[in-house]
């Protein structure tokens, strides 16, 4: 068997899960309630749902989703701006697929497309640059939506466009960084969390060390996790061990990919192109130092600076609880609209649309267990 296949070994998985269940029972006794852990990565959200871990550990520990899906945390104002780009003459909007169906205050990119806007889905920002090169008569505005994992690839696409001398490729940066959102979660006095499962691929870029504040300033355990079910079960094991020992450390459970200092080449790319800004997250409002905006040197590639589309005041639909959900204050099933007024075919909020949204994951994998 190939070494990487062993990370899917069901036998190890079952045995490790038994240990986790036993430790969770001890932790529950100690705390007087089940321990609560939050994952801050949409890919983890999906992996947890798909593996049915919540059901398997029901009553023993609670797994909550946080602000881990970049599409879901994108503010109404930003989505409305994206839509506005699509209405400008001569402009094509390029995006990752997840963004297309997300409802803004009045419409979505998908609906605009039906009305004639040119909206194109790209798998990679590199493909978007190639498209711009092949279509010099169109202005391509690419929607930069992502965390530290994605932002360097978007920065690189702009460097590529610059090297090619393209005048028709710009990016609307709604890119964000994760640690300030963790600060915001931890600073909330109502938050009742016993530990974080930290995002593996964000961490591949930023490294383990940047998270030390979680342990040092807030005394909370955390574990960086990979994406196989075994990785996640192992992260729970690590978290429970810390809880039971009364310790708080940032463990690296994904050492096969994540280094202490992260990826210096990717970090250099971020530093070269972006500056840190205070930006708004759905549910949180403005989080200081959490956004990535183009540096003045890259103004020519900044869609916001180039086109400055007019956007009306956002109008927020009634009843959607995405904001509270992203803060870990409730689970999808606690939203009254879940699976009734809000479904993947007729979504009210982004958490039901994005393939990594918690509502979408629960709808697809955990609806029947409710």
């Amino acid at each position, binding site marked *: 068997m190939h070494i990487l296949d062993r990370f899917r070994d069901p036998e190890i998985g079952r045995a490790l899960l038994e240990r986790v269940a036993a430790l969770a029972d001890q932790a529950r006794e100690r705390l007087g309630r089940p321990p609560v852990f939050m994952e801050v990565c949409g890919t983890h959200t999906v992996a947890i749902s798909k593996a049915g871990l919540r059901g398997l550990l029901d009553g023993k520990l609670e797994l909550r989703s946080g602000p881990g899906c970049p599409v879901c945390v994108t503010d109404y104002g930003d989505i409305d701006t994206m839509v506005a780009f699509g209405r400008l003459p001569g402009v094509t909007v390029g995006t990752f697929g997840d963004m297309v169906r997300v409802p803004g205050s009045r419409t979505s990119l998908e609906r605009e497309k039906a009305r004639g806007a040119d909206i194109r889905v790209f798998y990679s920002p590199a493909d978007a640059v190639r498209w711009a090169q092949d279509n010099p008569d169109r202005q391509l505005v690419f929607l930069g939506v992502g965390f530290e994992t994605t932002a360097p690839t978007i920065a690189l696409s702009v460097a590529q466009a610059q090297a090619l001398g393209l005048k028709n490729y710009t990016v609307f940066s709604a890119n964000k960084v994760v640690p300030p959102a963790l600060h915001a979660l931890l600073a909330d006095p109502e938050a009742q969390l016993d530990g974080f499962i930290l995002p*593996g691929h964000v961490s*591949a870029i930023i490294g383990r060390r940047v998270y030390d504040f979680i342990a040092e300033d807030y005394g909370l355990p955390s574990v960086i996790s990979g994406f196989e079910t075994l990785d996640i079960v192992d992260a729970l094991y690590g978290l429970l061990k810390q809880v039971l020992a009364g310790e708080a450390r940032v463990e690296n459970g994904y050492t096969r990919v994540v280094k202490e200092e992260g990826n210096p080449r990717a970090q250099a790319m971020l530093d070269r192109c972006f500056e840190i800004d205070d930006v708004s997250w759905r549910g949180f409002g403005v989080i200081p130092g959490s956004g990535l905006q183009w540096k003045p040197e890259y103004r020519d590639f900044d869609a916001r600076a180039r086109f400055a589309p007019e956007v009306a005041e956002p109008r927020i639909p009634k009843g959607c609880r995405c904001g509270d959900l992203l803060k870990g204050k409730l689970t999808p099933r606690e939203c009254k609209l879940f699976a009734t007024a809000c479904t993947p075919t007729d979504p009210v909020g982004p958490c039901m649309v994005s393939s990594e949204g918690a509502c979408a994951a629960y709808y697809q994998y955990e609806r029947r267990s409710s």
Partner: protein
Amino acid sequence: MCLGIPGLVVEVNPEKDSAVIEVFGVRREISTFLVGEVSRGDYLIVHTGYAIEKLDVEEAKIRLELWEEILKDAYPGQVS
């Protein structure tokens, strides 16, 4: 969104900062700019067409051994 898939490097093009990787039998060209030099046989974590980090197979082995240790501890002799 931060989905990253491990792919095996089957061809390298250092002058283009790119490589051909294979994932589940499917080959595609990806950028290696963010990870620097790569060699055939390396595993890369690929996100939206860009390698974002190399996968360290030695570390993967260490983790697996660690799990086997944990499992041996509680039920001696059960896990081979």
